[in-house]
């Protein structure tokens, strides 16, 4: 699999000035709203610490909690399935649907189903899948993946949405009124809710104590997807477990404040048992999570509650757009998770970061994101996944900086020739630097030369 070129994709996003400007400002706005909420709650940092500890505890006892969850969910009349990987997940979901001759599936947002690439699998087998979240629906109709885990179409402007809807839903071409467009999606999705044989949701949290799971939305589309059809399937990553209902107090207080700067989502929905005459299925999915649990430096990434706060604060993400990462998970959390899916394809991602650390500061469950990004760089180097130019430059630099003599020869007072570094590295370096910036001037003398002259040297 070819290495993904984040910088190239980012440059295309930046070139679209109106899109980049909106994207950057909108997500910065969400970051500021998050700050306002955080600063208004005296116990904010204590809540983050609790959330982190609850998750770490759960992950360090995950097998026991998964068994308890399954036991309780089963006692509630829910059928629990286990999927080792994406393929098995898709097969299980398909089998549940086909056994009941379900032909239409309405679903709410689930990054896990994106990760498993479920939609094309089902569609190829004759099942119509309707994304009901407005942002996800826009992306589905535009045949593009979601770019942000909370606001999937944040990289689009109203003109883009108008064009997509006119093309696919038959809305008035050129009508960019946002209320009109949202109402059009409401109007055209309703019939699907009413007629679909099956509904699907993800889950933000799965409570071991009760076997219940929680889905948070603002639109209420998860509630419609789950409460109308007779069949509700929930895809849940095994890392979503938390021990007790009371722990929801901590996580629900943190989730929407971190994601959108609002105290809670409009709908926080708790599913424990199917309605009378209806069926509920849960598919617990591994797909690399158990393996990640065993990675000493990277397992804390499993604490993630999918709030997107790291994306909102990341200055690189805001200017690149989520699609530039080429993966289901983008931004800072994507950088530390995606290499586990394909180390070569995503070998550049740990370098799509300035290591500024803002992500770690906003993460509600205190994942040490920027530290993990740093560690992934070492992994890439050790596993020989660095581009040749970078590897050669570092090798040469290492030699120059390891020798006072070579260093002094390289830093000449008069020319900044930076001799000693390979020609292609210098060329590459100054060409890239100089594309949009002035190169610093060479001073009369280096500091060392000045010191020798003015302090006699010691």
């Amino acid at each position, binding site marked *: 699999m070819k290495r993904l070129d*984040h*910088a190239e994709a*980012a440059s295309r996003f*930046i070139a679209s000035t109106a899109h*980049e400007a909106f994207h*950057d400002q909108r997500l*910065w706005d969400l970051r500021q709203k998050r*700050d306002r909420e*955080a*600063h208004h709650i*005296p116990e*904010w*940092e204590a809540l983050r610490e609790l959330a982190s500890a609850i998750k770490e505890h759960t992950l360090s006892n995950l097998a026991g909690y998964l068994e308890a969850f399954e036991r309780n969910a089963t006692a509630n009349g829910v059928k629990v399935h286990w999927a080792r990987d994406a393929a098995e997940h898709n097969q299980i979901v398909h089998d549940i649907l086909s056994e009941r001759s379900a032909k239409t599936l309405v679903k709410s947002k689930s990054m896990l189903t994106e990760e498993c690439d479920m939609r094309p699998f089902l569609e190829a087998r004759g099942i119509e899948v309707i994304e009901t979240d407005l942002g996800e629906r826009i992306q589905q109709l535009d045949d593009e993946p979601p770019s942000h885990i909370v606001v999937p179409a944040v990289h689009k402007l109203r003109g883009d949405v108008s064009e997509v809807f006119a093309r696919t839903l038959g809305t008035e071409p050129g009508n960019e009124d946002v209320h009109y467009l949202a109402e059009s999606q409401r109007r055209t999705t309703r019939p699907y809710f009413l007629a679909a044989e099956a509904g699907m949701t993800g889950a933000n949290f799965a409570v071991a104590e009760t076997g219940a799971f929680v889905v948070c939305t603002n639109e209420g589309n998860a509630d419609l997807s789950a409460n109308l059809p007779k069949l509700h399937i929930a895809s849940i990553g095994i890392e979503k477990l938390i021990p007790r209902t009371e722990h929801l107090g901590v996580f629900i207080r943190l989730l929407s404040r971190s994601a959108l700067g609002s105290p809670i989502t409009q709908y926080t929905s708790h599913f424990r048992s199917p309605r009378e005459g209806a069926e509920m299925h849960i598919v617990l999915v591994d797909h690399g999570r158990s393996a990640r649990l065993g990675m000493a430096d990277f397992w804390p990434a499993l604490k993630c509650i999918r709030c997107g706060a790291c994306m909102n604060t990341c200055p*690189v993400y805001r200017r*690149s757009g989520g699609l530039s990462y080429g993966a289901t998970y983008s931004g800072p959390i994507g950088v530390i998770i995606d290499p586990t899916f394909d180390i070569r394809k995503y070998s550049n991602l*740990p*370098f*799509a970061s*300035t*290591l*500024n*650390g*803002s992500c770690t*500061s*906003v993460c509600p469950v205190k994942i040490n994101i920027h530290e993990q990004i*740093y560690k*992934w*760089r070492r*992994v890439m*180097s050790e596993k020989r996944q*660095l581009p040749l130019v*970078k590897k050669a430059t*570092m090798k040469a*630099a*290492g*030699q*120059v*900086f*390891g*020798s*006072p003599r070579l*260093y002094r020869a390289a*830093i000449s007072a008069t020319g*900044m020739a930076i001799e000693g570094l390979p020609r292609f590295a210098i060329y*590459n370096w100054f060409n*890239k*630097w100089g594309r*949009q*910036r*002035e*190169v*610093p*001037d060479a*001073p009369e003398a*280096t*500091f*060392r*030369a000045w010191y*020798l002259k003015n*302090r006699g040297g010691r």
Partner: protein
Amino acid sequence: MKVGLFIPCYVDAFFPEVGIATLEILERCGLDVAYPLDQTCCGQPMGNSGCQEDAAPAEALFVKNFKEFDYIVGPSGSCVHHIRAHFDAIPQTEEVTKLRAATYELVEFLHDVVKLKAFPWAEFPHKVGLHNSCSTLRALRTASASEIDEPPFSKPMNLLRQVRGIEFVTPARPDECCGFGGTFSVFEEPVSAKMGYDKVNDHARAGAEYIVSADMSCLMHQKGCAERLGVGVKFIHIAQILNGARA
């Protein structure tokens, strides 16, 4: 106490005035300061690229040059952060561990160790935007970060406020990264430049005549952006202001 003066490679090569100002402030404090002539680099560029093997020689050389000092002080947050937090390409002997813990960034050193309270020789009658590099802010914690719910504090401000005539302006995004990020500035040039452009424009809009920072690397990047953009903001290292530079 013996202080070893650590001058990062790019300061040595491009901004010697920052090194001079750093040395002079430490001398004003009456300290016994020496500059090891054979120093090169702390190893950060290689370390940040994950290339431990390539960082080892520079790190070993750093230890050789600085092991005799009680304190090692350098005018660079990112380099000092590397030394204190990463610097592990070489065996972590007691000597290495001690050296790493004794390495300070200039503002930290003046504020916490020397506890320098006044700068009577300093005057800087200009509107100044303070840029806290991500290394000093979130790693070395020389000031409070806007993401964290904590009481505000700022060591660089505490020092700069003692300078006569200085006036502060605040950009809309006071602690967003400026986009230098070391090799990021070259390998992710499009995003780096955009971040730099946004940063200098933000300070310019706030009315800054100068942007000051404890990290010359950030300033080198921002200066390069400002000059290409034609934005008239000037750049100066905090050492220069504290040492009495008038402009």
